[in-house]
């Protein structure tokens, strides 16, 4: 059997690795971007001088040869579904028994003529990083970032690390206000400003001025910001061009069933470029997140190796870092939802917070939102999955803590909030120990 994978991101690479674990199939992974798979999320650290390029490779270069996974550094021009064959940019044809499309995303770029000005760019591919580095070498006096998602703040942190004055335009009235609950969103907004970033809320680019190089940004509110760099970070959308041209059924992304199979039986689509035909309730059909890509990679691999496994979106989780504040979310954490309520605690410095979201009527735990504090994934998921009562969670909260040893503990504060809110006199029933976590979960299962 011959499996061809288009795209060497985390989805494609995981698929390749998982197939190799189950089978002796011939595996070919093709990428237009780089020779060896790397971690896209680490690009920022290269610019910031934390790491060099080689540190960001997913595996040592020899790994792929050792595992008999053939890497091809080329562009795929065409998929021919009738002959089960793809054409590379060099004109070479490769036939496949199973094909995985893992082409990832492309940044959203506004269709404006000024996008071609020198100094205007996105941050997504490795080429973007090289372009940014070249620009920074020439000296950036003032930068504007348009679009307030995760890539936006990463770009802000990168520019900040080089001492480049930066204006950050976000559409909402606070950073990531469409995803984070208000308190957290304002917390991060304050943190961004405390770093010396000029965060402008409810602002967007109207147009960019300049002849060959960018000279100024005019915002929707009419402000003119002189600058010599503009970062466009308005989100990403699935890269589905190859699939569309091959006649594979697409919508926003490449449509796939529970087995991650596209409308063509021999072709799978995974990662950012895939769109689920039947997403789980309350979940999006396209989830352009590292973890989803990785899980999809293992599921597609299992199906190719004949195991028939369904992709389940499971309990949502995500993590990020906003300058110095780490962010973790498990389960359902809405910006606003009247059927839910939450226990919320924030420290005095405003750089750490814990939010437990629960159902207003039943008091069952629904989600955790954490800033500057680490919680154990397995336990949070266990609690959410088993619809645990809030009181049970709050009294056992130390078990969930994943901060380094000797770290300050905030479980008691949450408990006090709980006691206040529910007029209760609950007390902590657990300690921060991994052994106890295992014991606790086992005990709960017995019941």
């Amino acid at each position, binding site marked *: 059997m011959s499996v061809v994978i288009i795209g060497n991101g*985390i989805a494609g690479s995981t698929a390749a690795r998982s197939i190799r674990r189950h089978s002796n199939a011939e595996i070919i992974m093709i990428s237009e971007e780089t020779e060896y798979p790397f*971690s896209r*999320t*680490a690009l920022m*650290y290269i610019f*910031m*001088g*934390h*790491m060099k390029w080689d*540190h*960001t*490779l*997913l*595996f*040592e270069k*020899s790994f792929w040869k050792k595992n008999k996974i053939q890497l091809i550094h080329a562009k795929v021009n065409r998929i021919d579904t009738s002959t089960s064959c793809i054409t590379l940019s060099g004109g070479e044809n490769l036939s496949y028994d199973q094909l995985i499309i893992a082409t990832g995303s492309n940044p959203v770029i506004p269709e404006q003529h000024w996008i071609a000005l020198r100094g205007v760019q996105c941050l997504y591919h490795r080429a973007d990083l090289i372009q940014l580095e070249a620009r920074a070498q020439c000296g950036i006096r003032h930068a504007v970032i348009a679009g307030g998602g995760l890539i936006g703040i990463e770009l802000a942190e990168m520019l900040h*690390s080089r*001492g480049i*004055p930066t*204006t950050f335009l976000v559409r909402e*009235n606070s950073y990531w206000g469409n995803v984070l609950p208000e308190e957290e969103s304002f917390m991060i907004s304050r943190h961004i*400003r*405390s*770093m*010396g970033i*000029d*965060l*402008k*809320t*409810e602002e967007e680019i109207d147009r960019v001025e300049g002849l060959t190089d960018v000279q100024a940004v005019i915002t929707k509110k009419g402000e003119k910001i002189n600058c010599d760099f503009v970062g466009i970070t308005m989100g990403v959308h699935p890269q589905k061009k190859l699939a569309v041209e091959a006649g594979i059924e697409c919508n926003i992304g490449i449509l796939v069933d529970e087995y991650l199979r596209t409308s063509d039986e021999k072709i799978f689509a995974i990662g950012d470029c895939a769109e689920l035909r039947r997403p789980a309730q309350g979940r999006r059909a396209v989830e352009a997140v*590292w*973890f989803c890509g*990785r*899980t999809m990679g293992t599921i597609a691999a299992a199906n190719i190796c004949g195991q028939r496994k369904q992709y389940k979106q499971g309990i949502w*989780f995500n*993590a990020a*870092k906003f300058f*110095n504040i*780490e962010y*973790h979310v498990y389960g359902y954490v809405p910006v606003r939802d009247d059927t839910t309520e939450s226990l919320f605690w924030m420290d005095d410095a405003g750089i750490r917070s814990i939010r437990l979201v629960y159902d207003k009527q039943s008091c069952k735990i629904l989600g955790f939102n954490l800033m500057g504090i*680490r919680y*154990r*994934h*397995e336990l949070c*998921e*266990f609690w959410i999955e*088993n619809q645990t009562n809030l009181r049970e969670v709050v009294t056992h909260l130390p078990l969930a803590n*994943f*901060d*380094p*040893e*000797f*770290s*300050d503990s905030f479980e008691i504060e949450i408990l006090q909030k709980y006691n206040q809110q529910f007029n209760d006199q609950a007390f902590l029933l657990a300690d921060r120990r*991994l*052994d106890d976590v*295992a014991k606790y*979960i*086992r005990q709960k*299962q017995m019941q």
Partner: protein
Amino acid sequence: MNEPTLALVNPEYHGLSRIADRAAWALIISGMGIVLIYWLGNYQTYSVLTFLLSMVLITTGALWLYLLRYRRIPAGIQNNGIWHDGFTSRGIAGWILSLVLTGFYIILYWFPHVIGYGENGNSGLVKLFDPLSYFLKGSRASQWFVYGVLYTWTILLMGVRFIIKYRHVKYQQWRTLSVIFFQVIFAFLLPEELTSLNLPFNDFKNIWPLNYYFFFSWHIDEMILHGTFGYFVLFWGIICVVVLTPVLTYFFGKRWYCSWVCGCGGLAETAGDPFRHLSSSTLRSWKVERWLIHFILIWVVLMTVMVLFTGWTGRAEFLFLNSYKLSQWYGFLIGSAFSGVIGVGFYPLMGSRVWCRFGCPMAAILGVWQRKASRFRITSNGGQCISCGNCSTYCEMGIDVKSYAQKGQDIVRASCVGCGICSAVCPRGVLRLENASVDIHQRGEIIRHNKI
């Protein structure tokens, strides 16, 4: 809501603070200048003032510099520009520093007269330290006293820097306070105090086989000569090897020694911190590490057995082994050249743990315990790893932490000294040092059991 635009703050420091930076450097350099002039001028005057002046200048300058530098930056990971700076990325400055350090060790070990140590009286650098030596133990300084002072003082100053740098991670602060304490009290003050009381020099935390001469007959004879105290030293030394090492390693991993107590570890963690990312994390270097460190472990064990055999029977030779040759070469190649010259001299080229990783037989033994009988492990938090590589880059022992974390595995490696930096630099908070009896497979079983 319409928020006011804040005045732009340029995050890079300019103007006054840069002048303050330079002033701090000026203090450090003038302090070092005094030391250098005293050394190269080969002065022979006993001068308390010169000694104090140089020490105070360097100390104040260094502390001022750290306070300035880190006060400007909010608490968090401070790795910006590490790979852009030649000093910390094997640039020319790094190579020069490495040459200077290597040269200093060569002089120290084999040509002490160059720094002014004389049979009949000191001059130059060693002379400069005479006042402190007389103050502490009532006799003149030796090259080893000078080395001890510089070593302790470096750990102290760079330790303060480390504590400020990682002021948001309590584990790092406690650990650093601990290595500073053990260095100042157990490795420096206590032994010097013992000599002044006419007792044999002894560092109570220097455990065999790191202290490779512990079972040498001259050492045992010397201890026996000193009666009760000597017997206590021997008894304690054996307890350390037989009881303390396995028991503490079982509960906490080898970190209890390597990154909380040990002097070599102490220097690596503090003075070596700017270079920790230079340790290679390739599979090849791991292989070299395993061969080399276990070879040295076997050597030190063989040597010790042979030396005891010679002490017992009076015979130096057994089969093709000669106890004198074994220990002579070990002292020269491992005790001096590897642990000192290469161990510290190569910080700016191969990272801060060259000796601990490739050479230290104590680390090898602790590693075996850690691998086979310890609760210590680093766990990864669910599926949150984004394979960014910060953990592997900043692992001073060159462990490819990422390769485990991205698979969600526990990290149980013989070489891990439990410094906890992987956990600190992880931008997704994925890693945690734990002492636990359940491993990831058991935890997985428990969770899966729940799902059925």
